[in-house]
């Protein structure tokens, strides 16, 4: 538990000729959630993709549990749950099938695990219909079920409440609060504040150029 700590050290990131992240440093410890806000185009998504190791830094490094992530990216990814803008779902598969194939590549899953996660996000009634027939909010809930199933200590979430109604937004807040109380770490890019009822909420505002 005590080795759960994400450190960003002097991050410099360029996208084309835009200096998106300028000497950014912060730390997030177990039980803490960093909410990253800022106008569009200020690099919230780029920051998350950098923290996940998908983007390469021009300067600085990301450290998880005391080790630079570049030292062992595979292990780091095993402890990381990254949910981007669009839920990575196949339209021709059902929600259940999508979860089995998506998360099953990372972990051994039983049908009970999948069903449990779908129940938690309120997807039980429509989990066996092709995802093509689901609304954007329902797809987002399936992605949240995937997040639960990944059972990862570090969450990187890019605007997790997109397309969700009030109930859905409360679900996201509850999931993050549970995650934090279990000693998890989270970084979330947000547009508006998440009303998370938990200690350990920190904020970071990214300013534009």
């Amino acid at each position, binding site marked *: 538990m005590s080795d759960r700590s994400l450190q960003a050290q002097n991050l410099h990131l360029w996208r084309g000729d835009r200096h998106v992240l300028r000497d950014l440093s912060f730390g997030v410890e177990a039980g803490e959630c960093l909410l990253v806000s800022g106008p569009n185009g200020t690099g919230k998504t780029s920051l998350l993709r950098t923290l*996940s*190791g*998908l*983007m*390469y830094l021009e300067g600085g490094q990301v450290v998880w549990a005391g080790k630079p992530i570049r030292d062992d990216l*595979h*292990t780091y*990814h*095993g*402890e*990381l749950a*990254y949910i*981007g803008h*669009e*839920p*990575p*779902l*196949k*339209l*021709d*598969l059902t929600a259940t*099938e999508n979860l*089995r*194939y*998506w998360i*099953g*590549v*990372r*972990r*051994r899953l039983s049908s009970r*695990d999948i*069903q*449990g*996660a779908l*129940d*938690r996000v309120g997807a039980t009634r429509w989990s066996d219909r092709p995802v093509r027939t689901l609304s954007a909010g329902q797809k987002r809930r399936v992605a949240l079920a995937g997040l*639960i*199933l990944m*059972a*990862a*200590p570090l969450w990187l979430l890019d605007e997790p409440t997109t397309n969700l109604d009030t109930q859905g937004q409360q679900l996201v807040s509850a999931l993050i609060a*549970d995650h934090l109380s*279990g*000693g*998890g770490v989270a970084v979330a890019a947000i547009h508006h504040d998440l009303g998370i009822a938990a200690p350990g909420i920190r904020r970071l505002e990214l300013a534009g150029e």
Partner: protein
Amino acid sequence: MDAPPVSAPAGSPLAAAGLVVARDLKLAFRKRGQWIQPLIFFAIVTALFPLGISPEPSKLRAIAPGAVWIGALLSSLLALEFLFRDDAHDGTLEQYALSGQSLTWLLLAKTATHWLLTGLPLAVMAPLAALSLGAPIGSVPGIVTAVVIGSVALSLIGSIAAALTLGVRRSGALLPLLTLPLSVPVLIFGARATELAIGAESYSAPLYLLGAFAVLGVTLAPLASAVAVRISLE
């Protein structure tokens, strides 16, 4: 319902590859139209040769090896367009890259499934096309063997170009252009092996060379594709 405990058992690479294969097969079954197209294209191309060149049996027999392999190469190029395309668009590839599993291994599983659905059927259709162009029945085993090995090589070689052209808007003819340098030798050796098989001579020499390309493909292509995919995700 409780969430699973945080320290959860990791999936084994074999199980992960199995799931990649299972998902792609299931999706192919539900979207059959996409997968039939390259095969129909092959049939059309090989049918055009007697119409465009000459219906005379001796001439047809002479061009049969080239016609079959040109058709196979073009069909393979068409099929490669959708090897990674859908997964790249909906974020599946991104999740593979973040899964903690070897991306090289997962892409090999994906390419193998793609070959099963696009290359292997070619090995069934190619001898039929050759027979319709006047090849003797005795040449069928040789043609099937050559197309099986050659199509494996084409799928793997092509997967590199398919990965490199991800995220390139309106890539158009870029994938064929990138594939051509390495796939033309496959075409040449494959056509030669087919020609020898039709002439009832030993075709082992070009077959070994085809095999060399296939082995080179299996060992290097998934590695190169994984690097190309990671670049596209940046």
